[in-house]
């Protein structure tokens, strides 16, 4: 009787241990599944407004994602394919890379080996590509070091860039925006990519003013304050969501 009771207690104890172990193991199992998902060939990455993120894909490819960017990575031993769904990213493919890289942005497919280049989805049909080092190909067109390509359904327009211009184009990788003759409309659009609070030009007379300089992409208040000596003042817009810019000069 005593033996049977002891055996029963053992069974109950074993059941409790098994249940507890299962309960304890289930988060581990979940974690394991998550880790496994991370190592699966397809991975999805995104950045929020103003966020810049660096991801490393294997030993030979590093990707820096700019603000509001979404991309999907599919890897196989033969090829790494990145689908740039929206936004902008800088791809740095090491010289000793054995696996080619293919970046798909809209209808554009960029093929690369050892190179450093950025791809920006301007809209559904237009893509901008800047090659910093090495070369890449789009269809039958080769885009070389220090070239910018605007790719649209109408074709590819290539432009030669100096090293300084390439570096200026890639200032975003350090959290900066640089201007060299852009209009105020273009400059505010660029700031708006990086900030939740938006700049709105409420006065058409100032939108074509050209500007030069360099700012932290998040320092919208200093930028607006520095416009004052140019005869541009701020008026508060939609609560704390927008800053409206108007001319402070009297209309003629």
């Amino acid at each position: 009787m005593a033996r049977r009771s002891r055996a029963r207690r053992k069974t109950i104890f074993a059941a409790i241990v098994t249940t507890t172990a299962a309960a304890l193991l289930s988060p581990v199992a979940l974690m394991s599944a998550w880790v496994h998902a991370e190592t699966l060939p397809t991975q999805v990455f995104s950045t929020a407004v103003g966020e810049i993120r660096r991801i490393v894909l294997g030993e030979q490819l590093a990707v820096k994602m700019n603000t509001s960017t979404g991309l999907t990575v599919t890897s196989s031993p033969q090829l790494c394919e990145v689908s740039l769904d929206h936004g902008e990213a800088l791809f740095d493919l090491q010289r000793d890379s054995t696996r080619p890289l293919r970046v798909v942005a809209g209808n554009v497919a960029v093929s690369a080996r050892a190179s450093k280049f950025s791809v920006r989805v301007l809209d559904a049909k237009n893509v901008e590509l800047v090659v910093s080092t090495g070369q890449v190909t789009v269809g039958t067109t080769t885009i070389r070091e220090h070239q910018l390509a605007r790719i649209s359904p109408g074709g590819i327009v290539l432009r030669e860039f100096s090293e300084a211009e390439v570096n200026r184009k890639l200032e975003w990788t350090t959290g900066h925006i640089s201007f060299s003759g852009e209009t105020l409309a273009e400059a505010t659009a660029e700031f708006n990519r990086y900030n939740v609070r938006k700049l709105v030009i409420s006065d058409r007379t100032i939108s074509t003013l050209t500007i030069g300089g360099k700012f932290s992409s998040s320092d919208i208040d200093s930028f607006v304050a520095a416009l004052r000596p140019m005869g541009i003042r701020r008026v508060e817009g939609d609560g704390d969501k927008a800053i409206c810019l108007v001319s402070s000069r009297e209309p003629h």
Partner: protein
Amino acid sequence: MLGHGVAVLAAALGFRHSAAGKLEKLRLKIAASAAPLALAEFVRQTGLQVLFDFDAVRNFSTREVIGQLDPEEALRLMFEGSGLMFEFINERTIAVRPRPPVATPAVQASGPT
């Protein structure tokens, strides 16, 4: 009137000083060149933010600057005789613009009486 003018000037200088804050001396080497290029180099070497009206400034030239200088001293030397002026908006931001033409008081021609 003169006292008021001095006070305004002092306030203006005081503002510039406080906006600039305490600036560190840096080893700077900026070649004489067109203002937009020189300012880009100034920004690169100092890490400060600069804004200017590109079309208004592009045809100005600046002097060479070499030495251990704080950014305010450097800009003063760069802009010497250039026709450009600068203003510290805050401790890390500078606005650059052409110096406005000095208004000369109209001289009343007076003939012999």
